[in-house]
């Protein structure tokens, strides 16, 4: 065995750097991949060797998917997991490996080893390697013109001037995040203008037509059409909150705590409320709330009133919860968690306490079922046929994010816990409202 293949073998034994696109209905399964020490999910495609496309993505995003593929450094490969995306038909990456099993990790490791040891060629680019516009200024040698060094670099104009928060006139950079920005739901595109790192003129769009999403398995969707065991609903709510917490901790750059929250989501059983509270106390002691989470983005209680936005509204002091209307919950002595703190710290604390109380409630519920039909309190808020809390939260995004610094804005957006799968599940025509 030569030195080169020996070194490649050593490299292949390490964690596989993967950039993941979590398509329809695959959010939780993709999250669980992070528990495997043989895989490292990275936040930028430039740090990845493999592109994992899990579940269907929107057909309109196929060009963005191709661009994502081409930006991965060589040697690279694509693995599709429970999807037959039109992306594969684009030609360049026809050799994508398909996985249908529950666990994609063995395949990811095998493909990683193959591309490192030369058993499989690196995938070529899908898009043509041609600049949209040649970079050329107005002078005879391509020099001069407008812009920093003249000309219009690769057809892209320079940023426009605008007022910044210090009273100066500086460049305002328009950016669009998505549809495959890590930590945001696939398909969601956030556009904003950046003045330094302050976001202004924020807008968010969601895919017009979503691919079919297998959301019917969720007990919250089933509770819209008939009675469901309260114990099952509350256990699902606690797991959902803990899964969100895991994502939010990872986004804060705390992967070890994030994996611990994810393990907790797998392990908790009815009556385990104190385990969740102990984890919450640990987070509190770590100084995360004081040091890492934004103190900006405070929302008045009145702004959330009547919107049925669940934990984020209750954190701001709005005592709204569909469970209060349900006879089954009232008989169990259900009490909602309300705080007077309308910022992301409050959202975190309310979700953790709600997860703990849901587990306690699940232990008391015995065989009791919901009685209310046609509306249910999902982990994100009031869910009804044709209307979801994600839709209503999306409408608030421009207002919540405008004026925040980049990092605070992303933390706030992640704090909203947008779930396009849940939103699509209650839409009759499979269409999700595109929101300004």
């Amino acid at each position, binding site marked *: 065995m030569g030195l080169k293949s020996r*070194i490649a073998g050593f490299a292949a034994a390490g964690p596989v750097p993967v950039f993941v696109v979590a398509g329809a209905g695959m959010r939780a399964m993709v999250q669980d991949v992070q528990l495997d020490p043989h895989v490292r999910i990275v936040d*930028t*495609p*430039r740090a990845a060797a493999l592109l994992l496309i899990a579940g269907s993505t929107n057909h309109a*995003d196929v*060009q*963005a*998917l191709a*661009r*994502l593929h*081409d*930006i991965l*450094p*060589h*040697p690279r490969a694509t693995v599709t997991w429970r999807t037959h995306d039109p992306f594969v038909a684009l030609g360049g990456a026809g050799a994508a490996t398909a996985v249908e099993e529950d666990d994609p990790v063995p395949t990811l490791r095998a493909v990683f080893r193959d591309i490192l040891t030369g058993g499989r060629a*690196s995938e070529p*680019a899908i*898009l*043509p*390697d*041609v*600049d*949209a516009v040649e970079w050329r200024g107005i002078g005879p040698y391509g020099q001069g013109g407008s*812009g*920093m060094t003249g000309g219009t*670099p*690769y057809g*892209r*104009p*320079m*940023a*426009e001037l605008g007022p*910044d928060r*210090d009273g*100066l006139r*500086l*460049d305002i*950079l*328009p*950016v*669009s*995040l*998505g*549809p*495959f*920005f890590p930590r*945001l739901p696939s398909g969601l*595109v956030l556009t904003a203008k950046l*003045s*330094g*790192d302050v976001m202004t003129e924020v807008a968010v769009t969601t895919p017009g037509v979503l691919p079919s999403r297998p959301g019917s398995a969720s007990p919250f969707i089933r509770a819209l059409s008939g009675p469901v065991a309260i114990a099952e609903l509350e256990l699902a709510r606690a797991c959902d909150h803990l899964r969100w917490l895991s994502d939010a901790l990872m986004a804060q750059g705390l992967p070890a705590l994030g994996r611990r929250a994810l393990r907790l989501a797998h392990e908790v059983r009815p009556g385990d409320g104190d385990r969740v509270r102990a984890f919450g106390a640990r987070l509190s002691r770590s100084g995360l709330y*004081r*040091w890492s989470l934004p103190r900006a983005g405070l929302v008045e209680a009145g702004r959330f009133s009547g919107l049925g936005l669940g934990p984020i509204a209750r954190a701001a002091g709005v005592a709204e919860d569909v469970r209060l209307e349900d006879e089954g919950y009232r008989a169990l002595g259900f009490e909602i968690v309300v705080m007077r703190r309308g910022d992301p710290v409050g959202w975190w604390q309310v979700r953790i306490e709600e997860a703990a109380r849901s587990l306690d409630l699940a232990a008391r519920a015995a065989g009791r079922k919901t009685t209310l039909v046609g509306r249910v309190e999902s982990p994100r808020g009031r869910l009804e046929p044709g209307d979801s809390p994600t839709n209503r939260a999306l409408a608030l995004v421009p207002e919540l994010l405008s004026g925040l610094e980049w990092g605070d804005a992303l933390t706030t957006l992640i704090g909203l816990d947008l779930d396009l799968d849940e939103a699509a599940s209650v839409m009759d025509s499979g269409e999700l409202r595109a929101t300004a």
Partner: protein
Amino acid sequence: MIALGPLAVAFAVFVAAIAAVLILWWGANPGRGRAPAVSERTPWTGGREPQVHAWNRYHARYYPMALVFLAFDMEMVFMYPWAVVFRSEGLIAMVEMGMFITILLLGVLYAWRERALEWV
């Protein structure tokens, strides 16, 4: 020759270090010899094409940090007279400087909490 011995060793270490860096750089870059494609040169923000060039003038808001630096830098001047009397004063000087540094450290933590150390 004896005088040149340590110099020769240092030179050899220098050459070996440069060679090691070059070999690692060459080995760690499987795409060597290939110009980056257009998509690899384009800033990536989630899949969309950027609308404007990434060259961007923004206000480097360094002045609070500069003020904080000046304040703490000037306080460090007090360590010079302290160093002169440290041997004669002994442990009491050590304790006093410890208290002084602790108070300064609290000031740095406060500035950090107030986000005075953020640049943009």
